[in-house]
């Protein structure tokens, strides 16, 4: 499998670790872009999800955004945003990639937050109201903590999707780890493509494990969800994924 040797050579060649095209720079670019877009996506989606879940109004909005978000091809979003935003100032491809990734991050977070809050047991809320808690206190002290595992699940799904889709950003002229895939593919050097793929996969895997850890720390006693599988909890993939249709909880 000479591709594997090529990958190994590329990753071990010190020359690839310097300069603007070097691995550290592009890794940092990829991290920064992913973190920024995820953070902005969370900032937008979380409050909306909390509001809809708490107030139980515009529920249809959260559900359709969630489901449509899953249906939208991420490549489509990146291309669409590029066509309209390529002329914005800043590095080439920065804004198109950033906006596209933020849009991608919103649906899973909003849907999971909404479902997480909505599925908090009504009696607990009644009891809290009975004790004289205000709406805000209920949200803060009871709803958010109980919904935390599902919310984190949503952020986790969004994070992995953002990290993976950031590779497509390279085609808009932006950098990131996707640049190795783009450049390798263009000159048919599959060692570089493989190296790019391995790095992105590792990045996505660590993101997944990081969030899985946080989720497990937050959720052992809080989550009313039955643990999906005794013993080994698979850390990868859309764990926090919520398949939800308005008719009833599809979970």
């Amino acid at each position, binding site marked *: 499998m000479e591709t594997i040797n090529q990958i190994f050579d590329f990753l071990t060649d010190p020359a690839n670790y310097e300069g603007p095209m070097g691995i550290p720079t592009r890794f940092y670019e990829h991290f920064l872009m992913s973190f920024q877009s995820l953070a902005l996506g969370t900032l937008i989606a979380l409050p909306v999800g909390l509001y809809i879940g708490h107030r139980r109004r515009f529920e249809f909005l959260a559900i359709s955004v969630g489901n449509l978000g899953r249906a939208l091809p991420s490549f489509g979003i990146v291309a669409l945003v590029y*066509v309209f935003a390529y002329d914005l100032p800043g590095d080439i491809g920065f804004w198109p990639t950033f906006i596209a990734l933020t849009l991608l991050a919103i649906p899973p977070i909003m849907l999971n937050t909404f479902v997480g809050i909505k599925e908090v047991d009504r009696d607990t809320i009644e009891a809290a109201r009975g004790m004289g808690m205000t709406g805000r206190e209920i949200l803060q002290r009871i709803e958010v903590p109980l919904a935390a595992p599902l919310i984190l699940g949503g952020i986790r799904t969004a994070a992995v999707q953002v990290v993976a889709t950031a590779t497509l950003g390279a085609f808009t002229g932006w950098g990131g780890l996707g640049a190795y895939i783009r450049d390798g593919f263009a000159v048919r050097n599959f060692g570089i493509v493989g190296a790019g793929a391995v790095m992105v996969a590792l990045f996505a895997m660590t993101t997944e494990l990081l969030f899985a850890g946080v989720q497990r720390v937050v959720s052992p006693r809080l989550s009313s969800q039955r643990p*999906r599988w005794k013993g080994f909890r698979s850390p*990868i993939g859309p764990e926090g994924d919520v398949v939800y249709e308005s008719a009833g909880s599809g979970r």
Partner: protein
Amino acid sequence: MIVAQVEGAPFIQWSWVADRTDVVLAKLLEHVQLTVIAVVIGLIISFPLALWAYRHKKVYPPITVFTGLLYTIPSLALFALLVPYTGLSLETALIGLVSYTLLILVRNIVAGLDGVPADTKEAALGLGFTKRQLLWRVELPLALPVILAGIRVATVTTIGLVTVAAFIGKGGLGYFILLGFDRLFPTALLLGSVLSMAFAVVVDGLLVWTERLVTPWSRSRKLVTT
């Protein structure tokens, strides 16, 4: 100034779309074909894997780690890495797409089987079901809702990923997205994205409908009181 977008021209050039309805149809067909085959093969592979993992718990972690690893490889890279071996062919696209469905399908099948209440299984065994009968007549039917949910997520994800295969010429509706992207031509881009999204929503609805149809018992109708 968007190079390909002449001032004054309507945002979406319907005429452009109207001229090539045959191409649109062909690409939609390719998209459907790729999605269906990928999910079906995904099921054929993940079903035995899930059963094996369900029966032998210790096998589950390695399977999920392996399928998880496949899941995190960016789709474009996976397609590109397959090109030297299987060329710019349907096989390349399919291998890539199938490998993405495995994690979701295996996990949901196992979760579905794991969700079957122990006492129902015990009662069935007590009545005289063999292990095989237990699996096909009790465990799988009861696991069906969760399995179908897995198929839904896998299908919708696959529909999205097919578009990326446009980079190796087998992208279904992704052809229009790539064309629109290369030429900064919104009409083609919107056509590709909206159509594949609509296709995903329709398939999603269809699968929800089949889930209802296939599991009449899961909705408890009015409780009969004596």
